[in-house]
């Protein structure tokens, strides 16, 4: 593998990381803590929305983020032919 391809692979990885970590931050620290009061004015069933993000929603999204990352990276490993086996 050439150093250039290596660098490309790593850059693509960092791009995924940045996007996913922004989502990670927004749903927990953003919606769950900093913006919780304005969001609580909206209701999701019996849940105030900010409260829902803090105690339910952020957790579901965390799970999704990890699987999305794993799938993206598997594809990337394949593209760059750096996977195992």
């Amino acid at each position, binding site marked *: *593998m050439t150093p250039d391809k*290596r660098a490309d*692979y*790593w850059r693509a*990885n960092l791009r995924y*990381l940045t996007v*996913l*970590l922004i989502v*990670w931050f927004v749903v*927990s*620290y953003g919606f*769950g*803590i*900093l913006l*919780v*009061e304005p969001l*609580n004015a909206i209701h*999701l*069933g*019996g*849940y*105030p929305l900010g*409260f*829902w993000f*803090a*105690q*339910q929603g*952020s*957790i*579901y999204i*965390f*799970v999704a*983020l*990890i*699987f999305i*990352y*794993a799938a993206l*990276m*598997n594809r990337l*490993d394949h593209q760059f032919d*750096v*996977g*195992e086996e």
Partner: protein
Amino acid sequence: MTELEIWSYSIVGLTFAIYIGIAIWSRAASTSEFYVAGGGVHPVANGMATAADWMSAASFISMAGMIAFGGYGGSVFLMGWTGGYVLLALLLAPYLRKFGKFTVPEFIGDRYYANGARVVAVICLILASVTYVIGQMTGIGVAFSRFLGVSYEIGIFVGMGIVAIYAILGGMKGITYTQIAQYVVLIFAYTIPAIFISLNLTGNPIPQLGLGGTHVGSGMSLLDRLDQVVTDLGFKQYTTQVMGSTLNMFVYTLSLMIGTAGLPHVIIRFFTVPRVRDARYSAGWALVFIAILYTTAPAVGAMARLNLMDTIQIGPVGEETGNLVYDERPDWFKRWETTGLLKFQDWNQDGRIQYYSDGGLGEARMKLADAKAKNAGVETAEQAVAKAETAHSATKFAKFGWQGNEMVTVNNDIMVLANPEIAGLPNWVIALVVAGGLAAALSTAAGLLLAISSAISHDLLKGVFMPQITEKNELLAGRLSMIGAILLAGYLGLNPPGFAAGTVAIAFGLAASSIFPVLMLGIFAKRMNKQGAIAGMIAGITVTLLYVFQHKGILFIKGTEFLMPELGMGTNWFFGITPEAFGAVGALANFLVAGLVSALTAPPPEHIQHLVEDVRIPRGAGAAVGHYIGLSRA
């Protein structure tokens, strides 16, 4: 023997027999099996074991109680203890798996080409893990005291004995399989009562939906009803009550998240899967299994709170018959009174229980009684009572003839265990919850003890001080250090620095401030050198420890907190941040110091930079051991 006792002994006995059976059946024969289960565990199985390892007494026993009394503020635990898995899966797990070593200090020692870095990492790891085990001991003490009907202290001694037998036998291979069984026990134990209670209160069997559903008795939404019940009694509104301040909640959550990603007993888990891609998925599976409990916990907390309030405040606030008569208190109330974790004091001598927010009057009275018994500080205590009485007399509660909150002790940690009893669920459910609490505490204690013992035997002895040690002696040293850790944690567990969840949060802060930053920099910053890493770890953990010890006592010993009041550093003096949340500040210090020192010193040698390049690419990941001894695949 009562029916409940028969159920408790049978279910707890049966589950223990299963765990010990598995531990013996899969006993570790080699160091590779002892530390990383030979590196051959399927990602889903590994995820389940990680979940059990992870969800400790703090998650199972303590967290819902913290949420019950902290309301929205309890969210820091929910987000903090799950969001860390995102960091772990994205920033650490695949690379550490690629690196392929036994322990976290081993990675740090190799990446930073210095035994010094490895030794500092071991010390940080031991500090964090021992603090964590103290939190487990607190939980085990609560569970055993209730289960055996003994005092909290005796509960701890019994727990220490069982943890010792069990962790020492197994090693990682045994622990991994046992933990899968423990996950099954604990998740059923947690969700079954939650389903019953949700069905009772909202008619919806799924607690996650029930919490957002309609309260059967009042027709209001459950959360609105709860807000109303607690505010009527002077408590803060459930759905908006913050923990400290918004800033404190922010750093608290951050501290738990990066602590999660820095805790060695969790990271080790990702060395036990066969491939790098498995490490990525394994973190996801772990979080799925964790999320089942973590999304149920807020429902358990809210519903337990509502049931507790409704049990005591049986009618309208202010009417004489609105409060439960003490002599008619339910059986669970009496049972928890024997543990000392629930206490009643009839301040107004009316034979009824008033449980409300009294602005600290009841507490001031308790302190006065205590001061009188010790014959010290009586005058200050009397002044405090007088002040609280004046404030209280202006409230509506004084007009009802109430003279202070009479539930003088309601320990947070009893809520989950007492929950099914409060809700009047069948005895087998109550027994199952006790078994689940013990499973959670034991599985985590075992995982932590393993991390401690591998740090001492593998990193310190084999790695640095006695490279010639035989495999047999290394295992022996590992087991001996486990015993030492159990004794220390048990001793400190007798005088815990807080509730199980709070103590555990401090452990996370220590891991967050020391381990996580250097691991992350080791992978993402090629330029980071040993000077930077060592200085960073020392700075991070020192800042955190100083703040924690200042609040909780030096080495958590009571009476040594706030030794120098003349410095004006009182409770939460740093921007109102609580010591449990301070790990995030420590981590920031770690990053800053590491970056600065590294920039001022020589870059790491060529081969280390190649090593970092290599860690970033999955291809060529060998087994976590290099040599499989007696490998068995799951």
